[in-house]
């Protein structure tokens, strides 16, 4: 706990309730809220951030506590570092298989069968960037107009060209590490002098071994040839600052939960457990942007950004005459272990809901605020992941490097998208963990079934784990109105807030991509001489039958679409600045605004959109 004490202090609920001079009230201390708060504060605006989580991880000690929780957790899933908090619950494993029509309300998200999604998001200070993988590809030009080009999905009300400058701002904020040369594929271009803030991280040894087996080969799809190669991903984790950045001014990696420089995020050390939580804060999280926002002082050196933690937004109140948001009702709990709370009303000029695609839609629906278009909660998207795993013929150093450093991404685009979904393939450096629970499962097998111990066991684990190759196919999902979030008063949390109900079916377009992906994986494995171990269990919660084959589909946690952006109030919930069509002082920000997600992880794009929204909010306030 070396950081300045005042940054640990949170606002007092009574003062917050009595305060009438917030320019902006933001729900959610994730990356969206953080960017808007920082931009607004730098323009001299007073900002209140309401965070449902405890905010304890704002301190280095609190961050380290999360790591300790993760290290001691038996199950190492995305949410393992984050303590249970029923007042701000989040989706967690395990999930169970459901039959069609069957409903499971035993986990936070109520789900109905037959398809069960394991998608997650994190309701904690820093939001889901506290567990994201930090891959930061941009959307491709074509992703902004899939309806026009491929007759699929929806067109954005924005072109790539209109968002390009904001992509650069987002890359700066996140401190993206990448080399322009590596990212120039499928028509992606960069201005002649552009460099990313930090240099690209190297491909892992496993990536290199896979590349060796496939480089120079190609696949054919609907009459077009696609060359194969492993390309590095742009990443939101610290590498070497590029001295050429910003016209030669260089880039200075700064900001973390702690303002002390040594804690501002070290250089990436290749910790394989960086998902869910980077031990050295090399991976970007919204706490870094928030630290900058909290540091901004006003004219009489008062802090411009306040944080109220343990504050769960419960209802958005609208002025029936103007349609403007008047106040937000907030339940402030005293202790995560108890439902005891007080309800306060918060006033402001502009309100920003940045609680993630599911929570933002949930809050809108729970407040009884369906939009003119009726699309709030609809068009829910998340990348569908299909895992394929095999054993490489030789030791490939699996478990070295962060979870994913490179992938096969040349099938992110092509004319085939008229008929089937595109995909990007992540090579997982952490072995079969996601698919089979390795290396724990390997250890159990070697000990229990093969009775290995001592040196034999060590050798056995090395031989088994260090050849593991997991190809995770991240498959495009297009917006479908019936894929949606709803609420129902019969499903509430301890504070009495309605929980989200998820109805999702993996669209046929996506399943065609998945079926091709399975075929593609077999081709790659054959070229590598790798032994395919992929098996999809019909009792798996995400099992989907498609054309007489079964596939286990996983959620990608790239949530989008629930307050979709468009050109009119009848075809969308928000305009191209993420402002609500129906409520002029309300912004619904984040992945929920995205009309399509292509094959790019959503964070970079939604961060870029929040820079755009920040400008619009400031314009509105003037």
């Amino acid at each position, binding site marked *: *706990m*070396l950081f*300045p*004490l*005042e940054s640990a202090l949170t606002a007092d609920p009574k003062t917050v309730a009595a305060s009438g001079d917030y320019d902006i009230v933001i729900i959610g201390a994730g990356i969206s809220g953080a960017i808007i708060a920082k931009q607004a504060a730098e323009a001299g605006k007073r900002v209140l951030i309401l965070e449902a989580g405890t905010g304890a991880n704002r301190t*280095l*000690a609190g961050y*380290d506590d999360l790591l300790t929780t993760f290290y001691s957790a038996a199950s190492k899933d995305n949410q393992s570092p984050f303590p249970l908090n029923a007042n701000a619950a989040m989706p967690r494993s395990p999930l169970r298989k459901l039959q069609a029509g069957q409903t499971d309300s035993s986990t936070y998200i109520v789900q109905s069968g037959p398809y069960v999604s394991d998608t997650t998001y994190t309701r904690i200070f820093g939001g889901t960037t506290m567990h994201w993988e930090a891959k930061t590809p941009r959307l491709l030009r074509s992703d902004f107009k899939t309806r026009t080009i491929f007759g699929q999905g929806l067109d954005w009300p924005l072109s790539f060209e209109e968002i390009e400058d904001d992509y650069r701002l987002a890359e700066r904020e996140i401190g993206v590490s990448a080399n322009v040369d590596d990212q120039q594929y499928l028509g992606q271009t960069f201005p002649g002098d552009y460099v990313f803030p930090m240099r690209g991280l190297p491909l892992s040894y496993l990536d290199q071994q896979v590349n060796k087996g496939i480089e120079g080969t190609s696949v054919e799809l609907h009459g077009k040839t696609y060359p194969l190669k492993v390309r590095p991903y742009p990443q939101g984790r*610290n590498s*070497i*600052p590029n*001295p050429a950045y910003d016209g030669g001014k*260089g880039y*200075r*990696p700064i900001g973390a939960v702690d*303002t*002390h*420089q*040594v*804690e*501002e*995020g*070290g*250089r990436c*050390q290749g910790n394989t457990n960086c998902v869910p939580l980077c031990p050295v804060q090399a991976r970007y999280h919204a706490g870094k942007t928030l630290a900058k926002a909290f540091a901004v002082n006003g004219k009489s050196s008062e802090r411009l950004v306040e944080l109220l933690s343990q504050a769960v937004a419960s209802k958005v109140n609208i002025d029936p005459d103007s349609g403007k948001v008047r106040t937000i009702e907030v339940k402030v709990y005293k202790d995560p272990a108890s439902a005891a709370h007080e309800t306060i009303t918060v006033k402001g000029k502009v309100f920003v809901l940045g609680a993630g695609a599911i929570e933002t839609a949930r809050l809108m629906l729970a407040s009884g605020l369906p939009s003119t278009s009726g699309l709030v909660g609809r068009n829910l998207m998340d990348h569908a992941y299909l895992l394929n795993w095999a054993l490489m013929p030789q030791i490939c150093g699996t478990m070295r490097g962060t979870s994913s450093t490179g992938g096969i991404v040349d099938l992110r685009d092509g004319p085939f998208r008229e008929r089937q979904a595109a995909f990007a393939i992540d090579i997982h450096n952490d072995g079969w963990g996601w698919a089979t629970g390795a290396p724990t499962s390997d250890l159990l097998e070697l000990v229990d079934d093969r009775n290995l111990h001592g040196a034999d066991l060590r050798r056995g684990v090395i031989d088994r784990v260090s050849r593991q190759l997991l190809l995770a196919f991240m498959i495009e999902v297009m917006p479908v109105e019936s894929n949606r979030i709803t609420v129902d008063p019969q499903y509430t949390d301890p504070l009495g807030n309605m929980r989200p109900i998820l109805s999702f079916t993996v669209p046929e377009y996506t399943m065609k991509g998945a079926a091709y992906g399975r075929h593609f994986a077999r081709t790659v494995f054959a070229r590598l001489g790798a032994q395919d171990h992929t098996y999809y269990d019909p009792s798996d919660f995400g099992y989907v039958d498609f054309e007489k084959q079964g596939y286990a589909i996983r959620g990608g946690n790239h949530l989008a679409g629930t307050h979709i952006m468009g050109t009119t109030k009848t075809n969308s919930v928000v305009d191209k600045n993420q402002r609500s069509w129906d409520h002029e002082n309300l912004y619904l920000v984040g992945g929920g605004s995205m009309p399509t997600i292509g094959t790019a992880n959503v964070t970079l794009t939604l961060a870029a959109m929040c820079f755009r929204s920040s400008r619009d909010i400031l314009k509105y306030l003037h």
Partner: protein
Amino acid sequence: MYSYSIRTLDELKEFLYQAMRLEHATIPPYLTALYSIKPGVNQDATQVLRVIVVEEMLHLTIAANILNAIGGTPDLTRPDFAVDYPASLPDGETDFKVGIQAFGREALATFLKIERPAQRPIHLVGKGLIHRKTSPHTTALGNDPRHEDLHFYSIGEFYSTIAEGIKYLEAEAHRVGTTIFTGDRSRQITSEYYYSGGGELFGVTDLKSALEAIELIIEQGEGDGGGIYDDNEHELAHYYRFDELVKGRYYQKGDQPGHPTGPQLQVDWEGAYPIKANLKVVDIDIKKDPELREAATAFNTRYGEFLQLLTRAYNGQPTLLLEAVPIMFEFRNMILELIRNPLTNHPGKNGCPTYEIPGSTKQAAVTQQAEVRA
């Protein structure tokens, strides 16, 4: 009275070499104390020590940058570079010993002395260096490299002398239309290779950057002119971070030195492994603890390789610093191996790294001694 001013470039180079030696000398004690802390306890102390180790490495690199800037050659492999612990550091009119020991009250008392802001009392101002005979078996740091028995009053004074020397020599050079900053700029270590390390690393290319570099080293250690923070009111000086642990309380803005008023913190004074202080390889019984002895030697060899790598990095190959990072992880593992295992000949005491670097003069003496004892 002997003038301890620096008057030639060669003298300045030697002073800067001694500065690197001094900065490096604090790393083994801090690093060992850090890793001696048992898992799960002393979270605050762990953070304090970790931050300070990293900052000492920053200081070492800054000193190398200054030496490079004036055309010098940093050499961490010189036989006298790594010191023999316990070594002697200046603390006012007397010296004190800094050694390798576990985290605890005693270690903390030593660390406070290392970082203590020491200004001469009025009656000693302008009185020159302090004459003190150092035992031939002890490494003395912070003395005048030209006169072993002449000691500076404090580390701060040692650096001030360097700063004055730089100013003087640069002014002299200017007079004849030249500069002392003739070093190859590509040898400078910049933030590209070292960041988030407790301060901004910048290239030293002229008088201004050289003086800034020295100021950064002094302020991070002692604070700014007696204040608890360094110059940008951002970071607590090392001395006061250690003081927080002693007092069991955090400092907060506005606090007076010695009187932290922030929240309380917990220090578990028993929460460290009982390592044998200032252990030498020869003290590990080769028959009873052969594995421990091997581990101690292996660590020293690796540490020697690390110093060689740094030397190459500071001599025009800065990218090699990236290779130093995984070695730091190796150190952690190797040190833990030593620290968590008991020494048969010293009941109740565990092993510890000895930092006797192969090739150093002291190490040679140790080897001879070992042969005699065998």
